[in-house]
Every structure is written in C-alpha cells, then in structure tokens.
C-alpha cells in the first residue's frame, strides 16, 4: 500500500518537474524573434554550385555531407548491434508454416512490388530537384522487403553472408571513396567541383539507396536479411 502511494507520488512529482520544463521551454519559444532566416540565404546563394536544385538534398549531400556520412555509419552500427545480439536459432521446424501462406497477400505483392520499385527509383531521381532522395527511396525499398518477409517469399536464401555484408557497407565505402577522390584535384574532402557535383551526388545517393534499404530490412530481421524466414516465424503469432 505504501509502495503504491510512493509510485503515485513519484509520478505526480515528476509530472510537475516536466510541466516546469515545458513551461520554461514554451516561454523561450515565445521569446524567440519572429523572423529569422538562419542559413536559408547562404544555401540559396550557393545552390547553383551544389549540384542539386532541392535545397534539402544540397544541404544533406553537399553542404553538410559529412553529417550524412556519419549518419549512415550510425545506421550500420545499429545493424552491428542487432547482429551481436541476435541468437542463432538453428533448430527450426519451419515447414508447417508453408501451408498458411496467404494467396491474397502474394497477389497483392505481385502488383505492388514493381510499383514500389518504380516509386523508389523516382524518389531517388527526383531528389535532385524536388522532395525525395536516398533515405526516402531506401525506406520504400525496405518496406517492400518487409512485405516479402511477411509473405514468406524467400528471396534472400541464396544471398551469402559475405555479399550481404558488402551490401550493408557499400554506401559508406562509395561515400568515402568519392570524398577522397575529390581530394586529388587539390580540393578538400567531399568538396565537389560545381560541374561534377550533380553526378557525385547521384552516385552516392544511388548506392546509398541500396545500402539503406538493406540496412533497414536487416534491422527488421535482427541484423541479417538471410535470417528473414527463421526470424519471421518466431514473431508471426501477433502480427497477422
């Protein structure tokens, strides 16, 4: 009884602290200047040399490309962590699930798969001048992968772990290589020349799309996309 009282008290007390934080932050927000353009001017000024007409893509891949490089490393880390924590479940009686594959889902995937691939390609291409880009395209491809896993379509079984590891890391490798290649022209790391910037960005984004898709899918499959089936069977119960 007294223990219950104590947790209630903690809830109320902590709630008050949070309310104070929220109030202070709210006042700070209201005290901000009403008009402030940040770096928008600087971005627009340099946009025609950045190789991407979409300012967000220009910031992401050119002005602050280094952040994006590290961010892909963050994604890779999550996969590494998931791999370290995954447990090999070798003994798996998976056959009895075969019968339960839903034909409607298969039919749906037949239709949706090509559409999703086209959407991903479109998002990747359009990212240069309109909303879109590698992350969005990669996420769409990864969702397709998740659908395939849910439908029990086992397209990854012939993928060796070695090639999977290459797919996971290829975007970092390409990103680093492009960055280093720019240095041969007496430029800085990741300093694209205005004439080639567009193609450098497109190359990085194209490879990143693939890697990001594989990484996100791997995160869904406990770190290994070749585990997809085994893994899925342990979790089927609730999802469907």
């Amino acid at each position: 009884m007294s223990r219950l009282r104590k947790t209630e008290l903690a809830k109320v007390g902590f709630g008050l602290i949070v309310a104070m934080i929220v109030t202070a932050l709210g006042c700070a927000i209201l005290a901000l200047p009403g008009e402030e353009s940040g770096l928008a001017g600087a971005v627009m000024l340099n946009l025609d040399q950045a190789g991407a007409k979409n300012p967000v893509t220009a910031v992401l891949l050119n002005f602050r490309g280094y952040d994006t490089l590290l961010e892909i490393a963050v994604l890779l880390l999550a996969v590494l962590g998931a791999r370290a924590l995954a447990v090999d479940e070798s003994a798996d009686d998976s056959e009895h699930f075969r019968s339960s594959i839903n034909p409607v889902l298969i039919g749906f995937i037949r239709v949706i798969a090509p559409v999703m691939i086209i959407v991903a390609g479109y998002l990747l291409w359009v990212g240069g001048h309109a909303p879109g880009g590698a992350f969005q395209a990669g996420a769409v491809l990864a969702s397709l992968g998740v659908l395939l896993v849910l439908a029990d379509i086992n397209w990854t079984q012939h993928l060796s772990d070695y090639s999977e590891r290459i797919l996971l890391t290829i975007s970092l490798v390409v990103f680093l290589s492009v960055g280093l290649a720019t240095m041969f022209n007496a430029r800085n790391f990741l300093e694209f020349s205005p004439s080639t910037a567009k193609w450098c960005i497109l190359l990085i984004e194209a490879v990143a799309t693939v890697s990001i898709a594989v990484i996100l899918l791997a995160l869904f499959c406990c770190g290994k996309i070749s585990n997809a089936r085994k893994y899925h069977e342990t979790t089927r119960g609730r999802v469907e």
Partner: protein
Amino acid sequence: MTTVTLYALCGVILFGIGFYGVIICRHLLRKVMALNLMGTGVFLILIALARRTPGDRPDPVPHAMVLTGIVVAVSATALALALLRRLHRETEIGDLPHDAK
C-alpha cells in the same frame, strides 16, 4: 500567436510527454515509444522554427538536420528492440542467474 509558435509549442508538449513516458512508463516497449515521441517533439520544434523566413521557402538546414535525426531515432529504436528481444529470450530461458536485483 502564429502558426509557427503553435506547432513549436505542440513540439514542446510532445517533448514533455515523451520525457515523462521514458522515465515513468514501466514497460520497455512503451519507454521506446516515449523516446520516439520525445524525438518527434524536438524535430517539430526545429521544423516549425525553420519556417520563420521572410519568404515562402523555409530554411532547409533544419530540414536536413531532422532527416538525420529521424535516421538516428530509427537506429536507436532498432537497437533497443534487439536488446529487448534478447533480454526476453534470456530471462525466459532462465539458464542465467536472476540475481540482478
């Protein structure tokens, strides 16, 4: 009060709710969701404040920052869930001592 401040204040409240949840909620899955809510709150503040530019185009730099943040958030969520699965598995099998208390 403008649209910008409305959304920014909404972001502040989401941040608060998320932080409350991370500390107070007991189930780990809910703590992870709370962490995501907290992150969304920060992102909302960033994006709302990016719209204070004089013209009609918002400042793209916070947009890029938020994209980075979303990716970091999904990585952290995935790692948390991997830990959660493993913990669930280990504690259920119980071949390890439970003297963590």
